[in-house]
């Protein structure tokens, strides 16, 4: 089964690659990914406004992985030689005049169901409705158990201006692999 997940990663990073990472996400990986994103976009002379938008979304996407990454299924760990590490991937490719940020991580069936509902809800909202929801959640005085503010997905939806594309790939009877694509153009 692990070939499918790794194969997914290989498929997503094919193309005009800006930055990519597969494996555990830690603060050092985040720093490197953000530096690579910023340097590459600056070097190709991208519009500063678009760089800011892309950078903001990459921060949310990769920190979301950092807070929610899990230890993958045992057979995946063994076959990938992961030594018990957590696993997820984050990759960014140029697509037309824009950029696509793709993340992937294992989730159990309960989390998959909740995430699907959440994403569908956000995909149904207009820009104005996302703005209002952002302000409500910003002011709710709540932090999630992972230390997040519950705003990451809303912010990505708001900043990208595009609907999320997503998939939950069945891995086994306990795990699905969640793939999220965010387009900034």
């Amino acid at each position: 089964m692990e070939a499918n997940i790794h194969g997914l990663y290989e498929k997503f990073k094919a193309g005009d690659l800006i930055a990519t990472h597969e494996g555990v996400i830690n603060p050092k990986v985040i720093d490197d990914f953000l530096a690579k994103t910023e340097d590459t976009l600056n070097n190709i002379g991208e519009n500063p406004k678009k760089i800011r938008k892309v950078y903001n979304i990459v921060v949310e996407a990769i920190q979301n992985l950092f807070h929610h990454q899990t230890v993958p299924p045992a057979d995946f760990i063994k076959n990938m030689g992961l030594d018990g590490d957590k696993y997820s991937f984050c990759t960014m490719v140029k697509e037309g005049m824009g950029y696509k940020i793709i993340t992937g991580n294992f989730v159990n069936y309960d989390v998959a169901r909740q995430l699907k509902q959440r994403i569908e809800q956000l995909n149904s909202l207009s820009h104005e409705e996302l703005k209002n929801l952002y302000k409500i959640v910003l002011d709710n005085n709540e932090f999630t158990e992972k230390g997040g503010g519950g705003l990451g997905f809303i912010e990505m939806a708001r900043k990208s201006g595009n609907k999320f594309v997503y998939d939950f790939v069945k891995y086994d009877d306990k795990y699905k692999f969640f793939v999220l694509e965010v387009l900034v153009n």
Partner: protein
Amino acid sequence: MDSINIEGTPKTPTISFDAETSVIEIKGRSIPENSIEFYKPLVDWLDKFADVAQGTVNVNIQLEYFNTSSSKCILDVFKKLENLQNRNRAEVVINWYYEEDDEDMLEAGEDYQSILKIPFNMVEIAE
């Protein structure tokens, strides 16, 4: 009362909280993985500052990037300042700086402005 001065890093902003001058500044990037850890001492400082503050408190916020967990912590900072004003301890003015083509940063300031009851000056910086 002691001031807080923290030098900025690629992930955390430069902080200058000065009780003597009543100038409070947050500048740079605020994208730490653990925002609560970074902002807690600042929020605690504002609790103590509430006992000594008087006159006008000038708050300068000049952020290049901030992540969503920082956004909640920054709201906590603003709410402490709002309380200070509500207790008639001092008059609080927030100067929210944004680069001239950074509409998202302007909108972020307006989001805070709509939640809070303290005056915001939106200050455009020429690039």
